């Protein structure tokens, strides 16, 4: 074709299409099986659409067919990074529903292990967040301390990740003296380890450039999007369920709630780093103030499993044992309950409707990750592809909890 015959290009009608990039469900930085559909103009994200549900296992529906006790291991698998807090949230909700009061020692133990779990979760978060932004070494430094916590969990209850340790009405078994001693030792040196992670990234100019002013969300917007946890506190909202609606032993320990002011990735990062230190403080106080006493309530024989000795000696206990296991708690009250706890990722809510049987008529989990993913388009649009990665890291999601 002769060049003179070619139609002239009209610059006004010349269109360029956006590039649609499918990030995930198998992508190294989506922290699981999340899929983001990114519309790119060059490297700028024009539109970001999250797709969830790749890890759906029907936990809420499964729980409807199980007694309250039997459904407890399902909550381990919601947020497998910190299953302790999810067990606790679940148990606390069921205890509220059934009106069970937990002994003081069990409360302290629960608070302590939950904070350990929070540390483990935040360590995994800083590890992967730093890795996403390219600082590889933080990953392995953080895993060293996380490994210690997981080992303590193993010694405590025989499992490292899916612990199933808190029980309705108490905890599974008592803590040993070695556990207490080694965890207290750990709290002595842990803050210096946090300083070590920070030494690599905290004031680093590249880290600044990758996190400051990225993914900004104002306090008002954050509340509107339903963000909770460090993602909300990074925007400057002073909201921590442990302080506002204390549960377990949180009202008898002293800790600060870190908040940011800018609402960017960096402030969310700073909040979580400070939470590591505050959790450390809580653990120390829990250990120092740990009282002697029961670890399972004896006031609720129709809810908790009776002791092994009684099962074979007392007729009543044996009947309770069989009833609680097969039919669930005896004489359940009817009604609804929503109980929120502060999981490492944010506000973890359990909502139950009870129709008086030993199993929930409906269980609903308010998973922070699910809500946080909904805010991703707000955080990512207008930024670059690399910022998507920082944003995913900064809202700290785990897909097991999101998809349930």
């Amino acid at each position, binding site marked *: 074709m002769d060049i003179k015959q070619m139609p002239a290009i009209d610059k006004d009608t010349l269109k360029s299409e956006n590039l649609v990039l499918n990030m995930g469900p198998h992508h190294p930085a989506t922290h699981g099986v999340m899929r983001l559909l990114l519309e790119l103009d060059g490297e700028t994200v024009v539109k970001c659409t999250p797709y969830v549900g790749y890890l759906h296992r029907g936990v809420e529906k499964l729980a409807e067919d199980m007694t309250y006790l*039997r459904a407890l291991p399902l909550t381990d698998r919601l947020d497998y990074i910190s299953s302790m807090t999810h067990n606790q949230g679940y148990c606390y909700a069921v205890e509220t529903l059934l009106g069970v009061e937990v002994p003081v020692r069990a409360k302290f133990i629960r608070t302590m292990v939950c904070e350990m779990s929070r540390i483990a979760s935040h360590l995994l978060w800083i590890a992967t967040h730093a890795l996403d932004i390219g600082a590889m070494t933080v990953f392995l430094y953080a895993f060293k301390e996380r490994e210690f916590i997981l080992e303590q969990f193993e010694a405590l209850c025989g499992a490292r990740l*899916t612990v199933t340790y808190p029980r309705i009405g108490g905890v599974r078994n008592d803590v040993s003296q070695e556990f*207490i001693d080694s965890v207290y030792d750990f709290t002595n040196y842990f803050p210096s380890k946090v300083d070590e992670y920070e030494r*690599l990234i905290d004031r680093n100019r590249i880290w600044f450039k990758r996190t400051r002013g990225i993914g900004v969300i104002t306090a008002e917007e954050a509340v509107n999007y339903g963000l909770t946890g460090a993602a909300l506190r990074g925007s400057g909202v002073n909201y921590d369920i442990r302080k506002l609606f204390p549960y377990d032993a949180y009202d008898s320990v002293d800790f600060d709630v870190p908040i*940011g002011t800018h609402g960017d990735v960096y402030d969310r990062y*700073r909040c979580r780093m400070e939470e590591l230190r505050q959790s450390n403080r809580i653990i120390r106080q829990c250990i*120092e103030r740990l009282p*002697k006493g029961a670890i399972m309530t004896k006031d609720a024989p129709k809810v908790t499993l009776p002791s*092994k000795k009684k099962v074979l000696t007392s007729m009543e206990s044996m009947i309770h044992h069989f009833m609680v296991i097969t039919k669930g708690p005896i004489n359940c009250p009817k009604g609804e309950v929503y109980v929120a706890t502060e999981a490492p990722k944010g506000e973890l809510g359990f909502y139950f409707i009870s129709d008086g049987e030993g199993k929930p008529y409906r269980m609903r989990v308010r998973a922070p990750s699910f809500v946080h993913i909904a805010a991703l388009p707000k955080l990512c649009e207008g930024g670059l592809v690399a910022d998507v990665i920082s944003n995913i890291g900064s809202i700290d999601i785990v897909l097991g909890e999101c998809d349930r």
Partner: protein
Amino acid sequence: MKKHLISHEPKVVSLPDEKFSFKNLLKDIFLTEIISGLGLTLSSLFKKPVTKQYPHEKKEAKQGFRGLHALARRPDTGLAKCVGCGLCAAICPSKCITIYTYEDVNHDKIVDRYELDILRCVFCSFCVEACPYGAIVMTRHYEYASYSKEALFMTKEKLLKNWDDYMSDEDALVYFKKYWGPREEDFVGHEGQAVFRNNK
């Protein structure tokens, strides 16, 4: 909202906006924070690695570890302690235990088959807690990965063999004493409970 609940003061952790100063400029030019980070990684180069060379260097699971299941034997007859009450199957969240029983000529309940699908098990140890007789236990053995489904489908014989293989006498003693609960003292507390002792 109750007043006392919102009275706590938050701790602001975000960095203040940096003002220009000669010191900051020097810090910027000489990459102080990057050099400090480089120093940390360099000093780590000479520290002892924490890696365990797993297949060569095995880590023993802690006491009370929730590993491979086993069926306990009665010390007197050497048969399984299990009486086939079915509580373990009833509490199992993943429904991986199946028990088949029948009535023999003496009207005794005989456990015909006890099947446990390891591939479905979530290792919550509820079966152990539910069992009134301590008939099913979890051992410290954790290296049982296999290429075949059959090897991970536990029958009564295999479970009894696990007891012989992995539950030595002391292990079983500690296991039942400490981890087979709830125990009587869990409901009241006792003298020897672990509390903080100030070592320093």
